[in-house]
């Protein structure tokens, strides 16, 4: 009983502090209302919520289900037929790296009704789950696979008996990260696409009125939805992980699929996203005025009369966006790694801190941003803070997972020689989690760009996000498409740089 009091004491203190600060309007002239005020306002607004929440839930769960089904099937296909993985590589990276906020306006222009929201939620889910599926399926126990092969089992038998069940914890942890993504995607689409119902629409409608208590109510509701979806899959994967962890450490890694495959696969991989872009425009019969093809965008940026002006605007925006992205990224990653490592050293600290971190982290960015803007103002601080928080969450999840998969016996070996916890970390935990650290870097790079763009769009009035929002206001369709394409290309470039670095470092440190 004493333990329970001690473990909830920090939260109680935090709540009391919040209440006092809120009641006295200490933060930015009432930008942070007291919890009781927020709840009171929630009660006043209670009739509004059900339809907004329902709309967001419908879109995000439809997107979650559709995106995950496609993702798992794609992951299985990529592992069974590595050539398909290489061909779809460009498409996968593009889907992963595209900042949802950049294509939300495009989706709203070209699709109707709930479809943009569902598509954006599904896109937010796809890559995380696909990647988790591929990772889970490829990091199987090669000894168990040998056994299946020794009874004449082929690739399919290994897939059936060893890989699929072994991949379930990884896939569930993918779902865990994907669930808040779906909510984020749906809300972002509501932002960019208008529409009457949905938490995003509600938030946007309330943003101009400057009512902090209502904004907080909406933000906390969105957070609760995302947090619950995360918690559901966290609980599921915790249950599964216990049973599937190998009892001994396998020294041999599964064979890597053969690389190479010729130039034409690279060409297909590069062209596929563009072909899909063009093909969808044709299939949906989008008018040329609104839907721009790759050739249109190129012509606008380089061949048309106004191309110099367009380039100027774009470069100015890039100069504002890039430095702050890099800074936020580094800070967020450092924070995640520090916390993941601390969770190994001081589990009790993590237990106390994690829920607090989780609340701020599962808070969909679009809900978080207005609140942070209220508190921090419209300067660079808000951009930086948002970038850090966007980067931190997935990085922390991945690194912790990496550390938790190191077998007990391996962790205990240095301890048996009297190693201090720090040395133990340095010798075993950190090297063993290195692949996950890099996976985290790759994953978070594009998210950092997304964070910056959302902040720019909603708050600071600078950079790529702002350019996108402005162009939307001017109905400058060419510029909307151009910003979308440039931000996707930028994200892809970031991703590739991180990946190439990862390959180099891992090869040098003996990882296959």
């Amino acid at each position, binding site marked *: 009983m004493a333990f329970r009091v001690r473990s909830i004491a920090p939260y109680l203190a935090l709540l009391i502090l919040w209440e006092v600060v809120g009641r006295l309007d200490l933060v930015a002239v009432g930008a942070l209302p007291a919890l009781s005020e927020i709840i009171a306002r929630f009660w006043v607004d209670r009739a509004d919520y059900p339809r907004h929440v329902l709309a967001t839930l419908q879109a995000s769960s439809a997107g979650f289900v559709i995106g995950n089904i496609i993702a798992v099937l794609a992951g299985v296909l990529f592992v069974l037929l590595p050539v398909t993985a290489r061909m779809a590589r460009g498409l996968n990276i593009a889907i992963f790296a595209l900042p949802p906020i950049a294509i939300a306006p495009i989706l709203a222009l070209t699709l109707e009704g709930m479809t943009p929201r569902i598509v954006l939620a599904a896109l937010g889910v796809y890559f995380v789950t696909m990647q988790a599926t591929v990772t889970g399926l490829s990091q199987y126990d090669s000894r168990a696979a*040998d056994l299946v092969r020794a*009874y*004449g089992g082929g690739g399919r038998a290994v897939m059936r008996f060893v890989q699929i069940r072994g991949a379930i914890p990884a896939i569930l942890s993918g779902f865990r990260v994907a669930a808040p993504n779906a909510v984020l995607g749906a809300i972002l689409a509501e932002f960019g696409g208008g529409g009457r119902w949905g938490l995003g629409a509600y938030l946007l409608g309330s943003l101009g009125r400057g009512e902090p208590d209502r904004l907080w109510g909406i933000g906390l509701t969105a957070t609760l939805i995302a947090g619950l979806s995360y918690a559901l899959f966290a609980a599921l994967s915790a249950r599964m992980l216990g*049973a599937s962890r*190998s009892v001994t450490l396998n020294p041999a890694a599964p064979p890597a699929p053969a690389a190479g495959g010729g130039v034409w696969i690279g060409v297909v991989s590069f062209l596929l996203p563009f072909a899909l872009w063009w093909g969808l425009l044709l299939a949906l019969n989008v008018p040329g005025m609104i839907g721009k093809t790759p050739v249109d965008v190129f012509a606008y940026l380089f061949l048309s009369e106004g191309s110099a002006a367009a380039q100027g605007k774009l470069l100015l925006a890039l100069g504002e966006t890039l430095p702050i992205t890099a800074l936020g990224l580094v800070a967020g990653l450092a924070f995640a790694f520090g916390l993941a490592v601390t969770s190994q050293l001081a589990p009790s600290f993590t237990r106390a801190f994690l829920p607090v971190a989780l609340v701020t982290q599962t808070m969909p960015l679009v809900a978080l941003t207005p609140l942070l803007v209220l508190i921090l103002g419209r300067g660079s601080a808000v951009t930086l803070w948002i970038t850090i928080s966007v980067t931190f969450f997935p990085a922390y999840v991945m690194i912790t997972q990496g550390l938790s998969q190191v077998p007990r016996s391996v962790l205990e070996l240095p301890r048996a020689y009297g190693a201090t916890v720090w040395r133990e970390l340095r010798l075993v935990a950190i090297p063993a989690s290195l692949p996950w650290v890099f996976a985290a870097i790759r994953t978070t790079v594009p998210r950092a760009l997304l964070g910056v763009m959302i902040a720019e769009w909603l708050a600071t009035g600078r950079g790529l996000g702002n350019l996108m929002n402005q162009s939307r206001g001017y109905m400058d369709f060419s510029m909307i498409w151009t910003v979308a394409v440039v931000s996707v290309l930028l994200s892809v470039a970031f991703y590739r740089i991180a990946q190439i670095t990862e390959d180099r470092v891992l090869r040098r440190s003996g990882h296959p």
Partner: protein
Amino acid sequence: MTAPAGITLTGLCKTFAGQGGSVEALRDVSLNCPPGSFTALIGPSGCGKSTILRAALGLEPLDAGSVLIGGQAPAIATRAGITGVAFQDSALLPWRTVAQNVALPLEVLGRSLGPAQGRIRDLIALVGLKGREDALPGELSGGMRQRVAIARALVSEPRVLFLDEPFGALDQILRRQMNVELQRIWLETGVTTLLVTHGIDEAVFLADRIAIMQAGPGRIVEVLDSPFARPRLPSLFAAPEFHHLCDHIAGVLHGV
């Protein structure tokens, strides 16, 4: 149990290309294991004995040479369920219970589990794990897991049994117990067995014939008989003639 089948290895060659140059793992290795025999393959770590076993199961492609199991190529023999195998690591699937792990080969071979339930239970009892059928591997000790692997190797009623240092990770006491157990199982089933080991006493105690390997390149340097009458009792471990044979093998292994 169907009639045992023989193993014929002819002229196996294998070279691994690695970053630190290539390693000739096997050079012209030939070995014949008649049906119903128990052959031990002994040699220092890294002499290629596990590679031979993996090649015999079709898990490792060869540069040259042929493997015949009961007159058939490994791919055909394994798919027909003629072979059983236990590796150095138990390689149990951590999410399957003991009984489900034992049943795995049957599932891979596409046989129905229904009629096999009795045999699965008998095998688990045979390796001394009666009552632990529904335990998960994580709840068992290392020795228990290894015994599950032995039961699993026998579940398909194999005519040829490949054992790759199956007791390598066990302590000496448990290892001797398992040796006695394995002999009993072998006498009951009469299955042709190829045992890879680096334990000299284990090889002498269990095998009819012992093939001694040396490394660099991996090759068989001598094949000799272990002439002791069956069933061999644990007291054999203390017999002078047993030690005499062990010392001889140690001499060959060290190139004396």
